[in-house]
């Protein structure tokens, strides 16, 4: 079978970096499996409960970089209790015991205790990189442990010295507490910066510090990514203009102080922008400026500046249509808006057939098309029909089963679907499960999907990473049925109000169900209110 010595194959495999490809390689034959596993350095585990650390270590002794994800996505929105799970400690403990030379750990939605961080900082000689996204459970003590091994100092003088000593420093993100003159000094010492985050940008435009800052900024010709501006004096933004022309990523989503003309002027300087994260106070008009200026734009995220507010029409469908018309390379969208129309979505679908991620959040979750009073089925249908490469979709607005028919029919590449307050019947869910062959993650809340939909094809769930259903119509009996038929799935019932204790009736509706495929059976660290069927 093998025409080459193992070393040659290994060398070839070095060029294969994508996880999917590596997984495919390992399935070819036993010998390729063996070679691949010894040469694999980066492993991605999308659900930390799908496999155990021991098995990971056994299979990939050469592991250097591990990515782990814990809680389901809806945990970001307070739908999952804090102590549900996703503890990283057992992983670090197991890795520490082994001979793995871990260099990088990337965690998302995991619970990271100070203890874990301490253990981490002591256990791996070559450890270089810790990336925490949406994690919790640690305090500054824990971070201090990490920092102690990485020369992290806290005070400003030390920060300046650190920056001076770091000619390779590429990314510097400062919080509010760093004053302007420090910022200016840091920039003077780090003109090679690529990514800059400014916490507080408030100063007197006539001050010397400001002038020095202007000069310092101009020297930073490498800055491609700019963020922050938590506090900002809009009239001083002109100091930033010189570097705007090189920016590829601008994140102003924490800068409510920047809006109106000043914001538009800033954007007009950013001709090379590829990713823009912004608040909705930019308004439709501001998005029009983006459309005219940012022809290279690929990703747009518009966040609500007042999510629970009184519905001032900050951005509407008009802004989105303008951007779609002006930015044909747009492929990733997260858009919080007050309203959306079918016509707008249809237009957007025509203008931008390259969407990979399309996440629309209408703040009133079941709002119909305000012009026609129709559900938004047709609009989203146009999106899935036109965007053949769509991998991620989040729906909102008034939606019936029809939109799911379209999704099942057209969204062939869809991997992740988020549904809230939609559909009329089980049919909606069935269309999706039957149609979307590449579906990996399905998360549903407040939809009328019941046992019939859940049980129609339980085998499907083994092809997916996970399914979340909350406030739907599935019953305890239905969930038990899935668990019985599919031992390779963990079916978790999250019952914070502990109703299940008192009422074990199978007909009882389940408030939150999370099921996922796993190779290692029931997890042992679930809190009391989680029952694994």
């Amino acid at each position, binding site marked *: 079978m093998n025409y080459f010595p193992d070393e040659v194959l290994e060398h070839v495999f070095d060029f294969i970096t994508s996880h999917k490809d590596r997984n495919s390689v390992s399935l070819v034959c036993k010998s390729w499996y063996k070679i691949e596993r010894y040469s694999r350095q980066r492993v991605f585990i999308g659900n930390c409960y799908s496999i155990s650390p021991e098995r990971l270590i056994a299979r990939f002794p050469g592991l250097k970089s591990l990515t782990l994800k814990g809680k389901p996505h809806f945990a970001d929105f307070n739908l999952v209790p804090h102590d549900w799970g996703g503890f990283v400690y057992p992983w670090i403990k197991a890795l520490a015991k082994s001979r793995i030379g871990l260099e990088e750990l990337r965690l998302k939605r995991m619970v990271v205790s100070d203890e874990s961080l301490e253990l981490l900082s002591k256990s791996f000689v070559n450890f270089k990189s810790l990336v925490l996204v949406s994690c919790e459970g640690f305090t500054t003590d824990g971070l201090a442990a990490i920092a102690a091994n990485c020369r992290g100092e806290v005070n400003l003088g030390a920060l300046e010295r650190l920056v001076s000593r770091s000619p390779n420093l590429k990314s510097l993100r400062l919080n509010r507490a760093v004053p302007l003159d420090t910022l200016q000094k840091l920039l003077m010492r780090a003109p090679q910066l690529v990514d800059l985050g400014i916490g507080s940008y408030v100063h007197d435009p006539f001050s010397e510090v400001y002038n020095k800052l202007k000069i310092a900024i101009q020297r930073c010709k490498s800055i491609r990514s700019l963020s922050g501006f938590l506090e900002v*004096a809009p009239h001083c933004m002109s100091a930033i203009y010189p570097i705007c022309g090189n920016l590829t990523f601008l994140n102003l989503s924490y800068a409510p*102080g920047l809006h109106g003309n000043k914001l538009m002027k800033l954007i007009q300087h950013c001709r090379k922008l590829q990713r823009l994260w912004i608040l909705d106070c930019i308004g439709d008009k501001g998005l029009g400026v983006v459309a005219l200026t940012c022809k290279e734009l690929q990703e747009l995220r518009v966040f609500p500046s007042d999510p629970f507010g009184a519905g001032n029409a900050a951005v509407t469908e008009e802004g989105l249509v303008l951007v779609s018309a002006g930015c044909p390379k747009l492929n990733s969208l997260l858009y919080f808006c007050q309203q959306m*129309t079918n016509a707008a979505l249809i237009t957007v679908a025509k203008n931008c057939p390259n969407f990979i991620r399309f996440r629309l959040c209408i703040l009133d*979750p079941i709002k119909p098309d305000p*012009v026609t009073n129709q559900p938004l089925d047709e609009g989203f249908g146009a999106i899935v029909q036109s965007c053949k490469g769509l991998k991620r979709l989040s729906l909102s607005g008034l939606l019936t089963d029809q939109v799911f028919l379209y999704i099942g029919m057209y969204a062939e590449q869809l991997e992740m679907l988020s549904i809230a307050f939609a559909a009329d019947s089980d049919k909606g869910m069935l269309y999706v499960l039957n149609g979307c062959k590449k579906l990996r993650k399905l998360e549903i*809340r407040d939809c009328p999907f019941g046992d019939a939909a859940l049980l129609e094809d339980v085998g499907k769930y083994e092809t997916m990473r996970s399914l979340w259903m909350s406030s739907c119509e599935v019953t305890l009996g239905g969930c038990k049925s899935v668990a019985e038929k599919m031992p390779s799935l963990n079916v978790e019932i999250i019952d914070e109000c502990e109703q299940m204790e008192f009422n074990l009736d199978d007909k009882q509706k389940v408030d939150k169900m999370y099921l996922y495929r796993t190779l290692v059976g029931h997890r042992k660290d679930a809190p009391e209110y989680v029952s694994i069927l």
Partner: protein
Amino acid sequence: MSPPLLGVEEEVQSSVSSPSVECISENGIGLKERNYLGLSDCSSVDSSGVSSNLNLKATELRLGLPGSQSPERETELCLLNLGKLDEKPLFPLLPSKDGICSSSQKNVVTGNKRGFSDTMDGFSEVKGYVYTEKSWMFHEAGSDSESPQSVGHGKYPGNSGVNVILSTRSPGVKASVKQDEPANVLQEQPRATNGTSLKQTVISNNNTGAPAAKAQVVGWPPIRPFRTKTLAASSKNNDEVDGKPGPGALFVKVSMDGAPYLRKVDLRTYSTYQELSSALEKMFSCFTLGQCGSNGTAGKETLSESRLKDLLHGSEYVVTYKDKDGDWMLVGDVPWEMFIETCKRLKIMKSSDAIGLAPRAMEKSKANNKKEFGYGC
């Protein structure tokens, strides 16, 4: 530019294995006619249509059918009549003045959106949207509302077959709706009992004792809490930066169940919970005397501090507040300074409405039993 729609039909037949073949074929045919991708067709005939800046409305008109007066009516017809409904008797135009479908419709189709219509209505009202509770009923626009056509608007099942069924099922519902009693209709909705974690608003006249409701939906909009907190902090700082006066006075609305109007208090004029409670008591005593009279207890005690905190012992009222995150919390838990910083509104509610909720759930749930629009705050 857009792929020909016809190509779709083959896909429809082969890939969708949905149980109801009839449904598919309808939809399949419907899709063929559904011209949403053929905008070029629309625009070519557009000149006669009502124009709009973005040509979007014109597009909609294009999709519509002849014979309607106002643009609004046309647009209502367009998507409705296009496609699958061609096979069925067309729903004539319904001049839905408020422009909203009926939520009662939804309720009749049981299992739909359990409880959400309540939440949604309340939600809409909070935001001050057009979709007020009233407009969720069928609008009694002449005889039109009696006809099945009205079913077609807004929320309806995706299958037109079901539509027809619905309309015949719903006349009773409609009648009651017409008489301006939305709550009765909405109560047909099978509201699950596990209500505490499922927040919902209760529309007026809810007499079933459904779990107390809240104005906002948990986890919606889907934004990370970190973001909202940071924004709140940033906004506050920016206000100061821009030279606006710092919050010298901190007026918040105070509502009370049963009181015909709200009051406002300046939180900065108090320094302890005791002071606040006395002030509230004075403000609202005129409303409580009646109740207290019937209970036989002295009116003065209504909002004393012991009452404030004495939820579990069945005291008359509890005071709750809405914090920056939009959550309703029991007053008295956190230090006063922290409370001032996070309190956005106050609400005095009957403790009887809070009874039945565990204290923890009470903290988490958005308790509200206001009659009129689902919540008083």
